[in-house]
């Protein structure tokens, strides 16, 4: 399953809820304000790093660039463009959009 998260972890508990429900082998794609969950040096960094042992975490690079967050993302988070987003959706049988 592919999970998408589009809310800032500072404003909603969406990312937290997604992280605790995503099963081993699934993928999480951070989009829109959700990309703030991909950053180093935040209270959520360690939680995301821990999750990365079991799930693949991606972030949509255009959304990162728009927000000036280049070079601030956690090492190991895979940055994808729009065609990459489409590929992820196509690769997974189901998509759960956490709002």
């Amino acid at each position: 399953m592919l999970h998408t998260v589009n809310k800032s972890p500072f404003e909603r508990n969406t990312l937290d809820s997604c992280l605790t429900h995503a099963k081993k082998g699934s993928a999480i794609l951070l989009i829109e304000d959700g990309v703030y969950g991909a950053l180093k040096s935040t209270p959520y960094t360690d939680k995301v790093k821990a999750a990365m042992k079991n799930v693949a975490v991606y972030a949509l690079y255009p959304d990162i660039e728009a927000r000036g967050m280049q070079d601030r993302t956690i090492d190991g988070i895979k940055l994808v463009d729009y065609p990459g987003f489409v590929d992820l959706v196509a690769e997974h049988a189901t998509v759960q959009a956490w709002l």
Partner: protein
Amino acid sequence: MTETTGGIDMDEDTSGVVKKFLYVNRKAPYGTIYALESLEVVLIAAAFDQDVSLAFLDDGVYQIVKGQHTKPIDVKNFSPTYRALEGYDIEKLYVEKESMEERGLTDKDFLVPVQVVGRAEMADLMEQQDVVLTF
């Protein structure tokens, strides 16, 4: 007040009233329209020569981070507008220290000069206003 002005007081002595306006920005840019709308309203207050201050706290601190490139998401990059505020005599920009640090940011990451204040000081600032508009 007269019938013809629809109840709006047109006397000259009210035209020069200057109030202290504080715009509280708490939302990240682009994900929602709040940041852009706040900026629009700030410029309106400036046009009326009001005493304007801007506060950035919570995710609002992300609004003024350097290096925003919005072409890839096909949205207007309004961050340069914060630099133009000085031209409208809006020079009181406050960033809440706790919000900034929690996000791994420093005052060097902002595209405009700001005054970094603690949460308690921010609370005092809010208390000193005539009008507070939160976005």
